[in-house]
């Protein structure tokens, strides 16, 4: 049934991200490093896809290839039917980094305005988008604060608002909550799901936390290192509107178990 649904989606719309036989090799002084090898992946509109794997498996590199921050050495990739380069020039995606990367000399509103200024939007449009997106990440009222006056979690929410203000259909997130503590992370995960439900964006999310990946995703891509490749792709059958309680259900634990098995099998622990 799942296959039939995928086939139907294929027929009606092109995938948002279509990766075929993609490889990326870094040339270093110690010889070539195969960061990505023969990656095949399709991401459909409205999907929440997580890349999970140990350090060095290429999950961040793959996300950076989608964002045109790295260039593949072989294979093909399209984003909204365009090359990543064209997609970047059209500002087709919003990117959230591991750190909030807010500019310390700009207020929170000023930081969110940054991409809007670069896009050349009118002041009125900027104000509107800032207000809307700060509301969306529950930061209304903090417009005039400087980044250092906010907690780490709030800073990361501001950086999400900044990515959303571009109003992309695609959100790329590189371990955005990796530096935050468990409690804040749980809270932000829940908020992120609500946000995703509200905006109906396609999200690609890099993480190394199994519960985070299972809780958030409709599709989990397990990667393994040396060379970086896809080991398993898991379609989640958890309901789309989930709360943190879903983590206690057998379905959740079953998926988490499969992810863990994949991580264990794909990783040789002899180093």
């Amino acid at each position, binding site marked *: 049934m799942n296959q039939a649904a995928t086939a139907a989606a294929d027929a009606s719309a092109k995938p948002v991200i279509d990766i075929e036989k993609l490889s990326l090799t870094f040339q270093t002084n110690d010889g070539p490093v195969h960061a990505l090898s023969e990656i095949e992946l399709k991401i459909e509109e409205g999907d929440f896809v997580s890349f999970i794997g140990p350090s060095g498996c290429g999950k961040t590199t793959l996300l950076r290839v989608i964002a045109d921050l790295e260039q593949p050495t072989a294979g093909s990739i399209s984003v909204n039917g365009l090359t990543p380069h064209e997609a970047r020039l059209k500002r087709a995606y919003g990117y959230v980094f591991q750190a909030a990367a807010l*500019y310390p000399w700009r207020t929170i509103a000023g930081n969110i305005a940054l991409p809007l200024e670069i*896009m050349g939007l009118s002041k009125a449009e900027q104000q509107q988008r800032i207000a809307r997106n700060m509301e969306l990440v529950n930061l209304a009222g903090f417009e005039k604060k400087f980044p250092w006056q906010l907690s780490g979690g709030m800073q990361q929410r501001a950086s999400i608002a900044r990515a959303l203000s571009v109003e992309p259909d695609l959100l790329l997130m590189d371990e955005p909550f990796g530096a935050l503590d468990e409690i804040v992370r749980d809270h932000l995960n829940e908020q992120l799901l609500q946000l995703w439900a509200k905006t109906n964006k396609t999200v690609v999310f890099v993480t190394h936390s199994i519960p985070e990946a299972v809780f958030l995703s409709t599709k989990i891509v397990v990667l393994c290192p040396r060379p970086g490749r896809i080991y398993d792709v898991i379609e989640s059958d958890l309901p789309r509107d989930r709360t943190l309680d879903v983590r206690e259900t057998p379905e959740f634990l079953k998926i988490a178990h499969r992810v863990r098995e994949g991580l264990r099998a794909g990783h040789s622990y002899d180093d």
Partner: protein
Amino acid sequence: MTTDTAISPPRNLSPFAGLMRGTAGPVILVVAVIFAIWYLAAVLLNTPFQEGIYERAGQTDVPISQLITDTLAQERPVLPAPHQVVEEIYKTTVLKKITSKRSLIFHTGITLSSTMLGFVIGTVLGILLAIGIVHSRVLDKSLMPWVISSQTIPILAIAPMIIVVLNAVGISGLLPKAMISTYLSFFPVTVGMVKGLRSPEIIHLDLMHTYSASRAQTFWKLRFPYAVPYLFTSMKIGIAASLVGAIVGELPTGAVAGLGARLLAGSYYGQTVQIWSALIMAALLAGSLVGIVGMIEKLTLKRMGMAR
């Protein structure tokens, strides 16, 4: 948790304890030590000359207190005493009209104007060079060695050349002196700004990349604000160097006005008190200029939200 166990800190009964706790105490102490060394050095350095005077006058057995008083009151001492310098500065600033050729304020003003002109040109030049160097590999490779080697030439050697060359093409007055200030002050600004413009983190540059920002946008919205603290640090060095440049620029021209001219005239006539008062004035001026740049820095960074 009901008992109040607040213990007052033990009180130190030494009268100096309170003084040394803040910054005022140590500052006063350092000044006092400097003055003590200065007075001691003045007595020791001026003694041989004073003994010569006594010998010629046939005075013998001069009491030590007399010797000390005399060594600190010579007209042309090897090293003038602090109070002589202070007195000279007082006489040539407060008691003279500013328009007078003998007013130290008049001379300071002359030097200050070429310092400021040279500093402004030097800062602008430094920033422009840094922008070029950061954005172009060719400029980096071709300009940077010249920028560095320009500073290895002793300024005393090149200053007369600059004055002579500029005079030959008909430029005289304030500008040649200012050029020497520029020569010294553009360097720290260039080096500081190159460092500053290159200092944004990769993540910030990647962010601009994801917005497909142009080079100009990346410069104005990221690189330049990032470099502002570096700019102020280099400007503090630059403005002090500018003052040195202006004074040095006044020496080879036989200038009649300016702190450099006062130094020159003082050494012609052995007026050590005049030399020292010009030196102290130059130091005070440099200190104030650096202080003013520091104040502007504080205000700017506060406005930018970078100072907490």
